[in-house]
Every structure is written in C-alpha cells, then in structure tokens.
C-alpha cells in the first residue's frame, strides 16, 4: 500500500514536472485548462473561420499585452504581493515618453528620463512594501493613482498621445515574422525568460520560499527584502514593455486605459490559471493557461457577435465556476490555509 502510494505520487510529480496537468488531483489550473480545451474544440467545430492560422494568431495577439502584464503580476503575486500600479505605469510612462518626443526632446534623452521614472516607481513600491512594511495592496494602489495623476496633470496635455510619424515605436508595430505580429514573440520570449528565472535561478526559487512563508525564508537566510524590491522593479519594467507594444500597434497611447477593467483582467488571467493570491504557488504555465482561456473565450464571443454586456457576464460566470469547482475539489482547511490568505 505504502509503496503503491509512493509510486503514484512519484508518477504525479514526474508528470507535472513535464508540464502535464495532474488529473488525479485536479486543481484550478487543470479545470481551467480543461475548460479552455473544451471551448477551443467547440469553437473549432461550431464556428466557421475559427480554426484558421490567421485567427489563431489573432487570438494569441489579442492576449499578448494582457499576458505580458500578467507575467509581471504573477512574479509579484507568487512572492505574496500584488501590483495595482501596473496599468498606470504602462500607460503613463509611454504617454510621457511620446509627449517628450512630440515636444522635441531627443529620443535618447526622453528614453533615459522614462527609464529613470519607471525605475523610481518600481523602487518606491518595493521600498514601501519591503522596508516600511505597508501592505502591497495599499502601496501600489496609491502609487498607481499618483503616477496617473502626476503625469496626466503635469507632464501631458491630452488623454491620447500620438506616436510621432516614422518613429521606431511606430515601425515596431509593423514588424512581422512569418506574418506573426511582434508582440506575440515578445510575449513568448518574456514567458520563457520568466520561466527560466523562476525555475532555474536561485533568486527565482527564493521567490517561492518567500511567498510561501516569508518569516521562515528570512530565518534561513533568504534576502527577502531586497528580493521584494526587485520584484516590483521587474513588474514596472514589464509594464513599460507592454505599454510600448500597445503604442506600437495603435500608433498612440490613450491614458484612459487606466480607468478600464484591464487591471482586473490582469489579476484574472494570473489567478484563473491558478497562481494563488496567497503566494508561493503557480508559475508561467498558469499564466499561459489563464491567457489561453480568456483569449479563446473573447475571440469566440466576438465571432458569435455577443454584445459586450453578455460577454462580461459569461466571463464572470466562468471565473466563478472555476473558483467554485476548485473550492469543492480542494477545500480549504487548517492545513492548506496560509496565514495572510486573501
């Protein structure tokens, strides 16, 4: 009995190590992955034009920026934090950059300013969370509002800032390899880098320790606080990349996006894929699963021409369903619950 149990456990571990969902103990990621596959199959059979190369590329592209932001968010969440300033940093850094270019600042200097600004906000987030011990949710909510308010009122004159004609950001938006837009490659590349970071670097592994139990991690000598700062800086730079890609595609950036539901969608993509909000759980694969579900869902609903109101309802119902099923299959009890669980 004992040996058999161990063998099953070993097989489970081996299978999950190669990226195979663990059906024996179906978790939220598995459920969402299954829903995504079902939806994909149903759409492929039922919707004309769904299963074409162009449409599949369009699906991945439509969630690329969202997915990139979710990668940054996942790294922060795994370390038991959250970054609510991501969308503000994404939109406002690029809006400021474009405004500087439009008013005649040289490209190099403008970019240095913006990099410095993004670094400063990342550091501010990190220091306040790590060293002032203010909860991340309040710090980043405040810095997000600050970044939006300051840039919007002091540095730019309009909600929408256009990319100057012929600038590299505009050219970036037209870059294609094999007819696939550049943001898909950036998403894939970043996903791979974050995967390598989380899985194979010492600091990547430490993030899980710190997220799972910060006090214990600190006691065994993990530099918990500097790592916290690093995560918020990383998240800020990921947001800048996402903003540049958005501007590249639309030839302008509209700061109104800060008021949209994008921030919730980012958290949704990470959490629906199974990155636990309580920290220490999840990885790049979870983000990819979450992004796949959202991408397939939105694309199918657009093809069927479902009005936006119903789209939000369906999206919310699927999320609720996944959470409920997860709650039934993996009930929370004293052993699984962690301190600081949201």
């Amino acid at each position, binding site marked *: 009995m004992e040996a058999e149990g161990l063998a099953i456990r070993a097989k489970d571990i081996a299978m999950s190590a190669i990226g195979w969902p663990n059906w024996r103990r179906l978790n939220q990621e598995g459920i969402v992955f299954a829903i995504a596959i079902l939806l994909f199959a149903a759409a492929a059979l039922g919707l*004309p*034009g769904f299963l*074409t190369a*162009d*449409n599949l590329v*369009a699906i991945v*592209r*439509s969630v690329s*920026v969202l997915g990139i932001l979710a990668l940054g968010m996942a790294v922060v969440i795994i370390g038991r934090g959250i970054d609510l300033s991501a969308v503000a940093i994404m939109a406002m850094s690029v809006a400021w950059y474009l405004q500087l270019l439009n008013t005649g600042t040289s490209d190099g200097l403008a970019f240095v300013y913006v990099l410095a600004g993004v670094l400063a906000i990342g550091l501010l987030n990190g220091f306040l969370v790590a060293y002032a011990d203010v909860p991340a949710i309040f710090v980043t909510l405040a810095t997000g509002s600050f970044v939006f308010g300051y840039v*919007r009122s002091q540095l730019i*004159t*309009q*909600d*929408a800032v*256009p990319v100057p004609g012929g600038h590299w950001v505009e050219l970036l*938006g037209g870059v294609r390899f094999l007819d696939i*837009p550049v943001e898909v490659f950036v998403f894939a590349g970043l996903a791979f880098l974050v995967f390598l970071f989380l899985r194979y670097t010492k600091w990547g592994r430490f993030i899980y320790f710190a997220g799972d139990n910060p006090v214990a991690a600190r006691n065994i000598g993990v530099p918990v606080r500097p790592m916290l700062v690093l995560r918020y800086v990383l998240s800020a730079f990921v947001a800048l990349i996402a903003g540049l890609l*958005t501007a590249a*595609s*639309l*030839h*302008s950036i*509209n*700061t*109104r*996006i800060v*008021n*949209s539901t994008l921030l919730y969608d980012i958290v949704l993509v990470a959490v629906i894929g199974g990155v636990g909000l309580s920290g220490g759980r999840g990885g790049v694969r979870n983000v990819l699963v979450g992004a796949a579900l959202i991408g397939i869902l*939105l*694309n199918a609903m*657009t*093809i069927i*021409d479902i*009005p*936006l*109101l119903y789209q939000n309802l369906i999206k919310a119902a699927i999320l609720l369903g996944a959470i409920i099923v997860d709650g039934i299959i993996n009930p929370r009890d004293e052993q699984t619950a962690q301190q600081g669980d949201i």
Partner: protein
Amino acid sequence: MKLLRTLMAAATALAITAFAAPGFAADDPGPAAYAKALNGKRVMLVPLAMGFDLAQGWAHYLKKEVEAWGGTFETRDPNWVVDAGAQAITDAIASDTRPDVLIIHAPDLNSYSKLMKKAQAAGTYVILVDNPANFPADAFVGSDWDKLGQLEAEAAIKGCGENSSKKIGLVQGDQANSSSLYQYAGIMKVLEKHPDFQVVAKPDSNWDATTSRNVTTTMLQQHPDICSIIDFWDGDATGASAAIRDAKLDGKVFLVTTGGGEKAADCDKLEDGTYGAVVMTDLARQSGDMNAIIKFLLQSGQPAGTSHTYIYTLEKATTKADLKPDSCWDLKALQAEAAAK
C-alpha cells in the same frame, strides 16, 4: 390675408425703427440690461473628462466668451469616472458659489438625472451637451445622434459603391451611452432603406482602442470582403484602423467614424487615408450655440427648468475630397493661444 398682415406689421415696425432710431441711439437699453443680467454670473462645465479634444475645445470657447461678459467660468474634471462627476455636481450645487449655469456632459441616459433636478430646484440652469439624457434640461446642445448615424451609414454606402460586397461592419461603443444607442438606431434606419447592404457584425469596443483593434481583426478575418466599417468614435477608431492596416486591407475597407473635428484626430487622418469619412461636429459653432443659450437663459428671468430647447449642431460627413483648410479646428493652436496669455 395672413401674409398681408405680417407684411404690413413688418413695414410698420421698419418705419418706426427707421424713424425713431437716430433719436434714441444714445439710450440703447441693450448693453445695460445685458450687463445687469450677466455680470458676475458663474458658468460651470462638467464634461466626461477634461483630457480629450471636445471638452478642451468647449472650455476654450466658453471661457473666452463668459469672461468677456464679466462672468466666471470653471471646469471640473471627473476623468471618465461617473461617481466623480456626480460628486462634482453635488459639490457645485451645495457650495456658496453655486453656478448659475451648469453645463453637463452626461455619461449615460440616467446617472445624473436626480442631480440635475436638484440643480434646477436650487435655481441653476442645466444645459446638456453632446450626450442626451432622460431629463428635461433647460437646453440640449449637441448632435442629433440618430441623424449622425444616418449620415455615417450614407457615407459608408457611398464609400462601398454599387459594385462592392455590400457588407458593412459596425464597431459600437457600448450598450449604455445614448450616443452609441441612437447612432446605431440611425445607421439601421438608413440600411433598412438599402436592403442589399447588410451588417455582418456589430461588436462593442467599450470606447477602447485595443478592444476595437481586436474585434475588428476578428471581423475582417471572418468577412475579408467587408467594404466598410463604421466605428462609433474617433477616440477608438485608431484601433479599427490598426486592424485594417495589419490585415493589409488599407484602401479596400472604407472606415467611417465620428468626432469633434480636431485636426490631428480627424482631418490629418482623412488626409492620409486612414479614415474614409468622418462625421464631424463643428465645435466652434456648437460652443457658440452654448454661449447664445447661456446668454438667453440668464436674461430670460424665467426660473430654471421652465423651458426645454433642443439645439442640434449641423453635422456633415467629410471625406478627403471635400477637406478644406478650415474643416478642422486645431487643439495645439488653441493651447498655444491659451499659453501665450
């Protein structure tokens, strides 16, 4: 008979004016009455946000005129947040410096109705601009969105031509904003008269350019032979145009949209072929209408909420062919003018 009487009355009036004018020129009661009614009055504009071309244009023209007749002009910036707008209106009504005229850009049909009623009860005239609402304001100044939709549909049909696929795609705003709902109704009215044209898809953009790009990409993949797309606002039509560009269908899909007639947002994009036609609001004239109705209401002596006037702005679908140097107004020039002061 009636005509004759009118003519005679007019002739009499003319004769009296001509006869009496020289003697009373020095005592024209107009300027004094005008100054008495208007001096020191407060006008407040609460748009959806101050950060976009329409609001900045209105504010420019209103401020110039209101300050010229000795009034005070203020704006509030809810920055697209409905609650913040409601708070701004509530504060304005309750403050010691309650505005005499409140110009409101309503986010939807119902949100501000109670507040506007309160404002009128307190004695403030309420003017709705651009977006209609379920409320009998003292005046509505803005587009007849139904008519605007009809103009867009006609432009799209013309842009497609007789020998096209006759397939049209819509990128709507949302399902709550009156400008989106009425625009849709107007478009469908025209298309009913042209049964050979059909709407193949009508997703919402939620006024967001990225969403507009994604839904347009899908639409073009499903129906690559679409001949025209109508996007409900130039603020997000940049997304639809990006999707057309990415699908390498520039010049094949006639993109129609609507906007405030700002140079960079509309005319430049007609010029470079991004947009096929734009139904543009004549912003200077619309602001002029607001100025006129403000002056009328303040002199009328009638209590707020007495009369209900609709002043629709003349709209026109502009294409590259009929672009003129004065088709658009230039936000940059207005900002430079304001900065120079």
